[in-house]
C-alpha cells in the first residue's frame, strides 16, 4: 500500500463515517515497519520483522465523541466497524467541547524538509543489521573476563502515517529511526551480577555511534557498578547524568498538561508567569529541529507545530494544551504533546562538573519510583557514584531520592554542555543542591 492509497482509504472511511451519522470525523492510517536483531554469545538470538497497519477513527456526532482503531483494513469490515462505532457513540453523554480543532490551527501546505527520513533505509540488508549487532556484542564481551553476558541489539523502523480531518486538515508523515544498544552483566561481589546498558537512537543511520563504541560503553558502565552499595542517608548535592535528566524534567511536563490542569491534578495550576525553577532553567519546545526525534510539521491532532518557550529563566511561560482541554479551559491550544525539548545548556562537560564537585552523588541510573503531579511529590530509586573532591570514590546503588518538584527545581544550580541527542528530550547533565538521599 502506497501513501497515496493510504490517503484514499482514509478519505473513503471518513466519507463513510459522515454519511452514516458523524458530524465530524478524523481518520488516521499508520504503518510502521520494523526489523529487529538481538545478538548474544556469538550468534543471533532473535530476528524479527514486523509491519503493522492500523486505522484509527474519531467520531463526533451531536456533541458526542468516541475513538476507535482496527487492524482489519478491508472495506467490508471497515463499513461494519464504522457503523458500530457511530451507533455506540449515540449512547454517550453530550459534551459541548467535543469537536475537531478549528481550521485556523491547521498548518498551511509546506515543503519544509525536517530531515527525519533517511532514504538509505531502503538499502539496508538483514546481513548488515546482523553485522552491526554482532560487532557491538563482541566489542562488549572483549572488555573484561568479568563479563557474564552481553546482549546487543540493532533495529530500524520506517514509520508512515496519513491523517485527515473532515473540516479541512490533511497531512502525511514519514520518518525513520535507527537504534542500537547493549545490555551487559558482570560478575560482582557476593554473588551480585550488576548490569548496565547503553542505547542510542537516531534519524540517520550514519549518526549512530560506531558498534564498537556502543559495546565498550555498555561494558564500561557495567564494570563501574562492581562493589555498588547504599551509603548513609543525608542531604547531598546531586549530579544527574544527561540521559537520566529527562525523567526529572517529566516532573514539570506532566503537570503542564491540559488534562492535569483541568482535572485539578497539577501542582502547576495558575502558575503561568510565575517562577517555578531557578534562573538556570530555560526549556524550549522545538518541533523544527533537523533530524530531531520529535520533529514534526503538525501534531497528532493536526495542530501546526511551532517553536515556543515553555520555561524561561525559571518562569513558566506556556502549558501543553490540546484541542479538547483548550476548549474546556477556555484557552488556546498549544499542542498537548512534547515535540523536542531543548534546554539552555551550561559550559561544563559532565566530567568537568564531577571534577568541580567537593562532595556529591552522581546519578547515572534510576530504579522505579514515581511522581505525584497533583502535589509535586517525587521519590525515585537511584544508582551512581559518590563523588569526593572531584573523584568518583565509590559506586552507590539502592538509594532513594525524595522531595517535591516545587523545591527541587529551585535548587538547580548548574547545567552541562552535553544535551542528550539520542532522545527527543535533549537534556544536559544537571546539578541540584542538597537533595534528600536515603540509604542506610
Amino acid at each position, binding site marked *: 500500500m502506497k501513501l497515496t492509497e493510504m490517503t484514499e482509504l482514509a478519505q473513503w472511511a471518513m466519507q463513510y463515517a459522515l454519511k452514516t451519522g458523524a458530524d465530524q470525523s478524523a481518520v488516521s492510517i499508520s504503518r510502521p515497519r520494523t526489523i529487529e536483531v538481538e545478538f548474544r554469545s556469538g*550468534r*543471533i*538470538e*532473535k*530476528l*524479527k*520483522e*514486523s509491519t*503493522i497497519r492500523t486505522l484509527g477513527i474519531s467520531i463526533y456526532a451531536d456533541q*458526542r*465523541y*468516541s*475513538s*476507535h482503531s*482496527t*487492524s*482489519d483494513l478491508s472495506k467490508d*469490515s471497515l463499513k*461494519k*466497524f464504522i457503523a*458500530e*462505532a457511530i*451507533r*455506540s457513540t449515540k*449512547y*454517550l453523554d*453530550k*459534551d459541548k467541547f467535543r469537536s475537531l480543532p478549528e481550521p485556523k490551527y491547521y498548518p498551511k501546505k509546506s515543503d519544509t524538509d525536517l530531515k527525519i527520513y533517511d532514504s538509505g533505509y531502503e538499502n539496508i540488508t538483514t546481513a548488515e543489521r546482523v553485522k552491526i549487532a554482532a560487532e557491538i556484542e563482541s566489542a562488549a564481551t572483549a572488555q573484561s573476563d568479568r563479563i*557474564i*553476558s552481553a*546482549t546487543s541489539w540493532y533495529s530500524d523502523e520506517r514509520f508512515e502515517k496519513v491523517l485527515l480531518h473532515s473540516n479541512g486538515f490533511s497531512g502525511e508523515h514519514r520518518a525513520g529511526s535507527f537504534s542500537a544498544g547493549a545490555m551487559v*552483566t558482570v560478575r*560482582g561481589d557476593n554473588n*551480585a*551480577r*550488576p*548490569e548496565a546498558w547503553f542505547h542510542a537512537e537516531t534519524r540517520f543511520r550514519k549518526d549512530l555511534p560506531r558498534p564498537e563504541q556502543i559495546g565498550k560503553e555498555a561494558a564500561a558502565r557495567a564494570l563501574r557498578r562492581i562493589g555498588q552499595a*547504599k551509603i548513609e*542517608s543525608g542531604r547531598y548535592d546531586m549530579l544527574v547524568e544527561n540521559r537520566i535528566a529527562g525523567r526529572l524534567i517529566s516532573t514539570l511536563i506532566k503537570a503542564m498538561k491540559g488534562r492535569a490542569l483541568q*482535572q*485539578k*491534578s497539577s501542582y502547576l495550576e495558575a502558575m503561568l508567569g510565575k517562577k517555578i525553577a531557578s534562573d538556570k532553567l530555560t526549556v524550549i519546545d522545538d518541533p523544527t529541529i533537523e533530524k530531531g526525534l520529535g520533529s514534526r510539521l503538525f501534531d497528532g491532532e493536526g495542530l501546526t507545530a511551532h517553536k515556543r518557550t515553555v520555561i524561561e529563566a525559571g518562569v513558566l511561560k506556556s502549558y501543553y494544551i490540546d484541542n479538547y482541554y483548550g476548549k474546556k479551559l477556555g484557552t488556546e491550544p498549544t499542542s498537548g504533546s512534547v515535540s523536542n525539548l531543548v534546554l539552555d545548556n551550561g559550559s561544563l562537560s559532565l566530567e568537568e562538573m564531577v571534577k568541580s564537585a567537593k562532595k556529591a552523588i552522581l546519578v547515572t541510573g534510576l*530504579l*522505579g*519510583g*514515581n511522581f*505525584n503531579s*497533583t*502535589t509535586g*511529590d*517525587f*521519590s525515585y*530509586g537511584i544508582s551512581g557514584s559518590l563523588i569526593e573532591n572531584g573523584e568518583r570514590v565509590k559506586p552507590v*546503588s*539502592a538509594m*532513594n531520592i*525524595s522531595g517535591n518538584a516545587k523545591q527541587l527545581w529551585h535548587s538547580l544550580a548548574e547545567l552541562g554542555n552535553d544535551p542528550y541527542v539520542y532522545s527527543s528530550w535533549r537534556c544536559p547533565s544537571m546539578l541540584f543542591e542538597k537533595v*534528600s*538521599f*536515603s540509604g542506610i
Partner: protein
Amino acid sequence: MTDRISRREFLRQSSKSVVAAVAAPYLLKPSRAAAQTIAEPQSAKLADYYRHFGVDEKLIRRTISDALSRGGDYCDLFFEHRLTNEARLEDNKVNQAKSGIRMGVGIRVLKADQTGYAFTEQLTAESMAAAARTAADIANSSKNVEPVQLKLHNCPNYYPVKTPWQQVSIDSKIPLLTKLNNRIFALDSRVIKSNIWFMDQTALVLIATSEGRIAFDYRPFLSLGASCAAEQEHRRERSFAGFSARAGFESITPERIDRIANEAVRRTTVLFDAVKPQGGQMDVVLGGGSCGILLHEAIGHGMEADFNRKQISIYADKINKSVAPDFVSIVDDGTNLNLPGSLNIDDEGNDTAKTYLVENGVLKNYLQDKISAAYYKVKPTGNGRRQSYRFAPLPRMRNTYMLPGPHKKDEIIKSVKKGLYAEMIGNGEVQIGAGDFSFYLKLGYLIEDGKLTRPVKDVNLIGNGPEVLENITMVADDLKMAEPGGICGKWGQRVPISSGLPTVKASKITVGGTS
C-alpha cells in the same frame, strides 16, 4: 440527575434490539466460540475457531511446513483476535468511548535457542506463507518437512463467565460508571473531581505447534477503576482504587462498585494528614494485597528462566538452596479462578500450573517457557506469554503470591517499635542481576511502639531480593490478592498479572523520605 438517569433507562429499554458492544458483533459466531459454557464437543468448537480465523487444518499444516523449510527445529502459530472496549467518565459525563480490534497470526521458528519471528494481519494463504518464510530464515539450511498431524489439546476453564462481553452493550455499562461517580461525590464533600474508567476485552486465541498440538482459548478481561481529587484548606490530594479480572459482566456487582468508591475516597482523603517519613533503612510491615508487588519484583522476575539460563539473575545457581525461613512459600499460579494473570493455556500452548518458586524456604522452580524448558530439560511450567500475536513469547509471571503463614497481623504490627506499614503500592521495578528492587508507596502508616500512627505517602522503597527474603521474620495468615491486578512490562511487552501477600514483616528496606 434524575433526568439523566431516566433518559438512560429509556435508552436501555429501547435498545434491546441493538446488537451489543462496540465493534464486536459482526464477528463470526462469537457466542459459540466465546462462551465455553455451552455443552458441545471440543472438536465442534475447534471448527468454530477455524471458521473464525478463516483458516483450516490444511492451511495451518502447510504454513508450519513453510516455516520449517530452512531447517528450523520447531515452529508455532499464534492466531489472536482481540476486541477492547473502553468508556470514560469525567466531569460527571460519560463523554468518551474507545474500541479496538486486533487480529493476526504470529509465526515463530526456533533453531535451538534462536528465534525467528514474523506476523501478519492478513489471514490469507499468501500473507501467511510470506510471514512463515521470513520467520524461517533464522535457520539457514533447507529441508523438506512433512506436514504434521494436529491433535486437539483440551484445557480446563479457569475463567468461567456468565455474561460474555459480546453480549453487553455500552448502554448497560454507562449506568455503572454514573453510579460509581455519584457514590464518590456522595461520600465526602471534599471531593472535587472524579474520573472513572471501564475497559473490557475479549480475546480468542488458536495455537498450533509443529509438535502436532492445537489448542484454543477464550480470554475475557475487565478493568474498572476510579480516581478522585479532594481539596481541604488549599491542599489537594488524589488517589485511586480499581478492580480487574478475567471475568464477565456479572463480576461488577453493586458491592464491588461501593467498595471501589469507598476505597478511592478513603485513600484520597486520608492523605491530608500524611507526612513524608524520615528516610533510611527500617523494618517494614507489608499489608496484604497490593504489597504483593514486592514478590513480583523481589523474586518473581529473578526466577524467570531466561534470565537464569543466561546466568544474569541473582537467583541463577540457587535452586534447592534455602533462601528464606521455612514458613515462607511463594507460588506463581496460572490456575486461580478469574484472576487477571490466570490462563487456561499459555501462549505457547502449554498447560498452566501452580508453580512453587519457594517451598518452605527453599528455592524450587524457575518459570519456564519453551526455549528455557528445553535448556533445563524440564517440563514447561506454562509461563510462556506474549502481549499479542505481534510478539514472541517470553517467560512471564501469572498470579504471584505468598502462602499464608503462622502469625497474626496484630502481633506483627505490635512487634515493631519504629517502622513503616505499607498499605498501597503503585508500581515497582527490579534489576535482575544486582537483585535490587523498588516499589512506590502511595499510602502507608508510621509504626511507633507497635501502633499505626500518621499516614505517609509518595515515597519509594528499595530492597535487595535475596536479602529481604532471608530477613522475613513473620508471615500472617491473611493472604489477600491485589484487587486492581497489575500490568507487567518486560522487553517492551505488557501482560496482565496479579500478585498477593499476607501481612509480612520484612527488614533491611530503605524507605525514601526526608533527611
